[in-house]
């Protein structure tokens, strides 16, 4: 008995000894981002190894805010990301449901569209798309242009399709026998069951929107309509770079998402389980 618990203890120690350094390496860049955001540029470029935060965050943030209206950009980013996430989860759920649960003419075409668009680099579509949205639809500098075109998200549809197709058919057949309409089955039976997947997808979509760079950069040229990554991008490569300021912006850009992730971790994990595991 003693030797068994002892070997268990040894294994526990070995496990943590392996995982802890790995976790430290993984957190290190994020920690340094935070440390840099509290330092003056002189501190950042001093020859000493500095691993501990200093006290300059507020000052760095003030520099950042003076260079670009970062708080407003954060507000725009949050608004766009929230609306986008809600709409996108709705759209991808509906499409995923249709693909998981019905046979219909042209199903293979729809699947081909979804798979084909995943592998196509966005950079090539962006110019014709910009031309179309700006010139034909006259939508440049609108919230619609910022939110609607990215709603097409094939990975999200695949994700939701997977979740729905894993649900037992009997569940829905029973409802159908009772004459429940299809959209009610979707809304009242399927969606509640898919909640974990939707939660996980929401995080991914929110992230995608929050970090989206090229499209918002091109489509919005009005002052005060910049999203946060675009605003931060204007500062990199400057002649007079305030690295502390950029880092303060990076921290502000990252911290809210990390915060949300801490609280939704459980949902997220179970959602990915539902999406990826057959």
């Amino acid at each position, binding site marked *: 008995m003693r030797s068994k618990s002892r070997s268990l203890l040894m294994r526990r120690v070995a496990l943590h000894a392996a995982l802890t350094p790995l976790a430290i390496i993984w957190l290190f860049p994020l920690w340094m981002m935070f440390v840099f955001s509290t330092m003056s540029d002189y501190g950042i470029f001093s020859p000493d190894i500095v691993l501990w935060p200093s006290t300059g965050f507020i000052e760095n943030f003030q520099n950042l805010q003076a260079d670009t209206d970062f708080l407003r950009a954060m507000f725009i980013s949050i608004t766009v990301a929230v609306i986008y996430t809600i709409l996108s989860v709705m759209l991808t759920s509906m499409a995923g449901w249709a693909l998981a649960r019905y046979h219909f003419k042209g199903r293979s075409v729809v699947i081909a569209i979804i798979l084909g668009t995943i592998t196509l680099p966005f950079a090539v579509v962006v110019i014709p798309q910009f*031309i179309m949205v700006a*010139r034909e639809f006259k939508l440049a500098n609108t919230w619609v242009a910022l939110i609607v075109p990215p709603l097409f998200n094939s990975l999200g549809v695949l994700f939701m399709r997977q979740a729905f197709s894993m649900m037992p058919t009997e569940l829905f057949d029973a409802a159908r026998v009772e004459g429940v309409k299809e959209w009610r089955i979707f809304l009242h039976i399927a969606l509640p069951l898919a909640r974990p997947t939707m939660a996980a997808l929401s995080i991914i979509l929110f992230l995608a929107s929050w970090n989206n760079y090229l499209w918002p950069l091109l489509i919005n040229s009005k002052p005060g309509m910049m999203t946060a990554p675009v605003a931060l991008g204007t500062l990199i*490569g400057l002649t007079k770079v305030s690295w502390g300021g950029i880092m303060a912006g990076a921290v502000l850009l990252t911290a809210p998402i990390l915060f949300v992730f801490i609280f939704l971790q459980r949902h997220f994990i179970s959602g990915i389980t539902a999406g990826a595991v057959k």
Partner: protein
Amino acid sequence: MGYRFLGATVSLVLLATGPAAAQSTEITIWSWNVAASALKSTLEGFNKKYPDIKVAVQDLGNDQVFDKSLAACAAGGDGLPDIVTIENFEAELFWNRFPDCFTDLTALGYTPKQQALFPEFKRTELEIDGTAYAMPWDSGPVAVFYRRDFYEKAGVDPTTIKTWDDFLAAGKKVMEVNPGTVMAQADFNGDSEWFRMLSNEQGCGYFSTDGQSITINQPACVATLDKIKQMKDAGIITAAIWDEKIQANTAGRTASQVFGAWYEGTIRSGSPDLAGKWGVYPMPSLTADGPRAANLGGSSLAISEVSENKEAAFKFVEYALTTNEGQVSMLKSFGLVPSLLSAIEDPFVKEKQAYWGDQAVWTDILSTLPKIKPARGTAFQADADGVYKAVQAKYFANGYPDAKTALDDAAKQIETATGLPIAE
């Protein structure tokens, strides 16, 4: 851009000069960091003259202005502001691909007399077949910015550095006496600035000045590349990207930087605590009697075809770029070197600059302007530059037997990419 446009302009000009024109208009400009700040510095003087024109300068960052202008031009101009800042070497790309995106300034009152206010080498890329797409703004006469204290400690007198060989020898001395310091830095990682500066000094470039053939493998270019490798192999130039250079300036890890004169503002505002320690001397040449003058960078202002306030926009461009008042205020505040010839005679230019150890740096730098040879960016600048950078990296890694073979290969690759012939 035919008669219809001209007619409209004329009638608008007539309207604008009439007494009923006291309406307030607002114009918008896209620019980036120091350039944007410099434009803002002219607004006070401009609004004294034209109180009814409100100017909004948007500081978007260099790459972003390019990307956004490109996308907007591709969309027929939708989304462009009234005025766009365009770097000279990228300029021809715009006129070539989107000839209708920017307006012909000559139709707005950019007269031959005004055109003659600027040096020839600044106008080659901006005017095509009589159409002036943009007005020259600043230029980048190349100079060596150096740390007086580091040179002095090594007993190096910068006035004796006339050739790159002198520079190399001086570098060895400076580095010996100042451990941890390098003589100069070059962005061998992501840029080609040393080759462009030194080859321009030798009258060579990626393309011929008429833009019709590839000249990158001409003897002067070969000699340039050869010399750069010599200096790199001797260890007096080390590789550093843009922000590493700025970091090195502040930290005192470099004894000199060779760059266009606009770098003055970068050093001054980037390392304010080093006032008095920096100085400037003219760039060395391959031979002692070489020209010791070259240009790197510089920008221009263009007015978009979709602008609804072209006249107001032109008034601003005219004030900022063709008057000494406008250009000198940008020189003072942010070190942007006027390409306006008359601005060179402004009293400010002769003033001693405290930051630069009381040296009259602008007199020294601007006196090289007349000796600068034109260099053509052409619409294929980006292609050629991409090829050159790859070849340079391979050559430095000893992937070619000599500079000639390297640049022959570069010429061949540029030929494939552009379809232009290689010059004999």
